[in-house]
């Protein structure tokens, strides 16, 4: 009764008369498996942690970016860039070669960072960062161990999320400035920086500011960019599979975001002249309390 003994004769012999619980002949094999599975799990855990940290830092980054005060932005965000860079470097060695696609757990962090990166890029240059640039950016942050891969999926899903940030940004800007962010990024940075002083003389500004809200019909402003984005994202065919499911989920949210900006602008156009600066219908007035506390 022991054909199985034949495969591991040497080990078997010393335990020949054994009852149960003697060492299983498969032990050496399983010990090998254990070592490799442990390695795999360690890698996976490092990546999950990095993905979370990148997500958290990216979210904070977006929050600072969202306040229309770009001058402080770069300074305040330096720490988050650093965190993210550290995390990418930390896991870079774990996702090389064969393991490049082994740990999809990184996608959460990648998407979130993509959102922050594209938003940042937009505020600086008013253009959409390309996939190749974004991938190169992550690669350059990954350090000497090799690049962490940013997949086209990460990119696309990150861009969907960025639409939400653009929406928040435009609505906050409309609420505080009484107009849609538009024009050259430098000009925009200036108006935003002027803001704190404006707020002291809140009521006095009303008349002055109202004519300024007219130029929101410039050929290019944040809304036309949002619409262009929406158009591209809707044209995009994600195919089946996971990307398809994810994209369909995010597409609805994305459309709503563009709608919200359009509605807010409508409100501003119809009633804008009757309202004091800082008042916008149908949106959260998260800016308002802050202003009053000055």
């Amino acid at each position, binding site marked *: *009764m*022991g*054909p*199985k003994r*034949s*495969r591991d004769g040497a080990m078997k012999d010393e335990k020949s008369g054994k009852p*149960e*619980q003697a*060492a*299983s*002949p*498969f*032990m050496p*094999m*399983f*010990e090998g*498996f*254990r070592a*490799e*599975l*442990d390695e795999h*799990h360690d890698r*996976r855990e490092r990546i999950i942690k990095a993905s979370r940290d990148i997500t958290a830092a990216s979210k904070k980054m977006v929050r600072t970016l969202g306040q229309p005060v770009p001058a402080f932005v770069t300074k305040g965000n330096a720490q988050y860039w650093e965190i993210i860079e550290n995390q990418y470097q930390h896991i870079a060695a774990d996702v090389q*070669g*064969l*393991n*490049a*696609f*082994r740990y999809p757990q990184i996608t959460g962090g990648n998407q979130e960072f993509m959102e922050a990166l594209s938003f940042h890029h*937009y505020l600086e240059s*008013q*253009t*959409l960062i*390309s*996939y*190749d640039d974004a991938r190169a950016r992550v690669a350059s942050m990954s350090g000497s161990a090799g690049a962490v891969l940013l997949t*086209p999926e990460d*990119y*696309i899903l990150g861009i969907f999320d960025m639409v939400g940030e653009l929406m928040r940004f435009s609505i906050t800007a409309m609420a505080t400035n009484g107009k849609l962010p538009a024009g050259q990024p430098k000009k925009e940075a200036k108006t935003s920086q002027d803001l704190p002083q404006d707020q002291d003389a809140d009521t006095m500004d009303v008349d002055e500011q109202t004519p300024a809200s007219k130029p929101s*019909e410039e*050929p*290019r402003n944040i*809304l*036309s*960019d949002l*619409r*262009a*984005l929406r*158009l*591209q994202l809707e*044209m*995009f*065919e*994600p*195919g*089946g*599979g996971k*990307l398809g499911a994810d994209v369909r989920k995010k597409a609805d949210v994305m459309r709503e975001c563009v709608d919200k900006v359009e509605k807010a602008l409508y409100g501003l156009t119809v009633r804008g002249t009757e309202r004091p600066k800082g008042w916008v219908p149908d949106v959260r007035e998260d800016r308002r309390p802050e202003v009053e506390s000055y």
Partner: protein
Amino acid sequence: MSAPSGMIDPAIFEGLQTKVDEDTAVRDELKDIIQALEKQNRNISFVLSRAHSTPYADLPSVLKASEESIQNAIETVGNLAQAASKQPYYKFNSMWSRQVQDALQGILFWAWLGGKDYNGNEAKCGRLLTLEELGEVLKVPTNLKDKDEFHITIEEYLLALTSLVEELTRLARNAVTLGDYERPLLINQFVKDVFAGFQILNLKNDILRRKSDGLKYRVKDVEDVVYDLSLRNLVPKKGE
């Protein structure tokens, strides 16, 4: 207002679309092969399931009958390996992992029944193919680490092993029904040995963990069979 905006370089989305379309094409190609493998797996398990109702002495006929479907599966896994090796392994492996596991399980069961060492005489049960031996049977690499090509992973092997244990648990009972009181003892030891192996693994909360948690119930099931046999003095004497 939504005039062609200077914001988006149209090439960005064109490039992405191309990439995604390429992946879809790869998926379609793989899907055909995987479906073929699935069908062949069903054939293997169909033939091998006759082992549950075949007396020990007649096992060779079952093994012979299974040869063709096993050959087919080996060939299909070869095709899969060829197609899949053109891509990063882990990008698509979730597509076929299930089917490969089923094929592994079929071959493990076949080898356990004696198929691997069959030389025309009596079939000898109880052999466990190692991961490397499975790779040799299937003619594909196993547990690759520095090459990004198709291979059989440790996880796939272990998952197939848990399925083998389930199959053997069933066989232990059915052997008794056929009047065979020896194989349940063999299975009992085998299942315990496998279980002991699984117990030293540090598993995380994943499918392998769930499957290996189920092993203790299989161990108990087989123990119950042995208990029933010994209670009735049906256990063949050692050293017969």
